[in-house]
């Protein structure tokens, strides 16, 4: 090809790339970023909780009941007997039923096929979820911050809701920050 033609081709290609390049952002259209837990949301105050206490809440909250009631936004905040804070997704990693926190047993128990999760790290110790392979045998956890006023804020999610959490990598305590 003569060099001049080559140059023209090059210019044309560059221009083409330039006009279509803004469409790389099209990918954003397919995600609901806010659902991936980037929001900072107040969920309770330390005064609201005593050891063994728990609060169900939805995150990220939008004010639209249809969205807020979605199972994928259901979480539970637990204060363990020794005063540790834990937030778990309430979507069972087996088949997505909603486990409840049972205070007397200090476990999360799924009503559907009886998976049982430990309160300290959300790992399934019994039932079908316990037989699933790592990392699909643990509940995703909420990342929280506790500020000077004792307000508890949820700031994100560790793990994938309805799927699992890589609990070998991040210990539950690392998900609670004092600010």
């Amino acid at each position, binding site marked *: 090809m003569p060099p001049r033609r080559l140059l023209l081709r090059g210019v044309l290609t560059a221009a083409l790339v330039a006009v279509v390049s803004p469409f790389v952002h099209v990918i954003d259209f397919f995600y609901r970023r806010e659902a*991936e837990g980037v929001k900072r949301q107040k969920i309770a105050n330390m005064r609201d909780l005593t050891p063994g206490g728990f609060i169900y809440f939805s995150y990220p909250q939008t004010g639209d009941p249809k969205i807020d009631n*979605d199972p994928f936004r259901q979480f539970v905040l637990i204060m363990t007997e020794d005063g540790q804070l834990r937030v778990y997704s309430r979507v069972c990693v087996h088949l997505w039923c909603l486990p409840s926190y049972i205070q007397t047993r200090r476990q999360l128990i799924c009503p*559907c096929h009886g998976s049982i999760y430990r309160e300290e790290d959300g790992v399934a110790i019994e039932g079908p979820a316990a037989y699933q392979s790592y990392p699909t045998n643990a509940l995703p956890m909420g990342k929280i911050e506790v500020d000077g006023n004792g307000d508890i804020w949820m700031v994100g999610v560790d793990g994938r809701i309805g799927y699992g959490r890589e609990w070998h990598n991040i210990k539950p305590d690392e998900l609670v920050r004092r600010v």
Partner: protein
Amino acid sequence: MSSNNIKNVKELVNSLWKWTVDRLERTTIVVFKFTVPKQYVSPFGYLGTLTAIVFAILGVSGAFLMFYYRPDVELAFLSVQEIQEKVPFGYIMRNIHYHASNLMVLLAVLHLYYQYFSGRYKIKNEVLWVTGVILGVLTVLEAYTGYNLIMNQRALLAVNIGMGLTYSAPLLGPTIAPIFLGGGLFDLIIRFYALHVFILPLIMLLLAVVHFPRALVIDFPIISAVVGVIFISAGLFPAELGIRFDLTRGVVEVPEWYLTAIYAFLRAGTERFTAGALLPLLFVILFLIVPFVDRSKKLSWRDRPFFTALGVASIALVAITTVWGFYVDFSKETAFDQLYIEPTLFYGLIGGVTLSSFYVTYFYLSRQKRGQRPPPTRPIVLSSRASAVLMTTLLILVAGAVAGTFYTYSINLPNHSMFYLGVAFILFGLLLHIYRHTISVEERQKGAK
């Protein structure tokens, strides 16, 4: 009307028809050669066309269902219930859609295997073959997204498995899964809806344009029978509503029959991605590459022992896992135990059955000597009088079946009604067949004179 008038009308219609056909020359439609066979030809040769016709039925019935269906987490189930229980004719519309979808998957599978065993992927048909395999995969995805829209327990089971295996896909899984899931179930259902009613069918249509061979066989008697089969199966196995998804209640569920094979693997403890995506993908890839591996000039299954044996083994594997996926041991106490499949037994048995069916077929075919083809059977020729009698009898039977359809519909037994209608369609197909048979016999006799 005088005979002159009739003649004029006839001429008008004729010239209008000619005018239209002339103009159609400018469109792409003339690329297709539609053949309406004058006598019975085996439907195995044009199972693809039948699949496409069922696809059209699905398009129409599905479009009507959209009038009432609401793609919303809370309302979806209720709207399907409304269609099923309150909307006049809704029960039947939904059953047509549901059973046509099952039939489409079934026809597509039969089509695949018939073409496979008769070596049709050769003789320059590679593009047809590859698009066909892709269409088959899309058909299953289309059916999958469809039955999830009901948002009953069964739907949620399937959604859960689907999302789980997408998430566990290496590399791209965690990026792709949220595209379907969005911000939760409330997003997911609308996205599945968009896929089901628009995106997937559109891709399928475009692929079908490439996949269609230039000559299409449109055989009305068989089409009528196919419609009849949809109605009869709807009458015998009415589509169920299931139980609304309830995240506090464990139910033992089994997916639709074209997914129970995957379910069997999952229940035997196979990792999700392997069971739900990798194994099916291997299967699909096997079919995709077959035309490029099997380079012999031979077409008949008898002359290709290896590939025939491979096909038979794949049928054996699909059959055994499909049936196994359905089996639930209700003697066990918990839902989990009822569904549990002992892996060693499972893998041992499916491995054994698959391999042995391969070897038996292979050795049988490679040892056998080519026998003589059986002499062609003499076709039955009906006299004009016999056909007249037969057709009248069939007409009476059709009328009876239709009367039954109306009657059972009026006393609110829609599934009986569909059964009768199915019978009517099959009888009508038979009637049509005898009609064309008689006409062609008469024409041949005329030609002989």
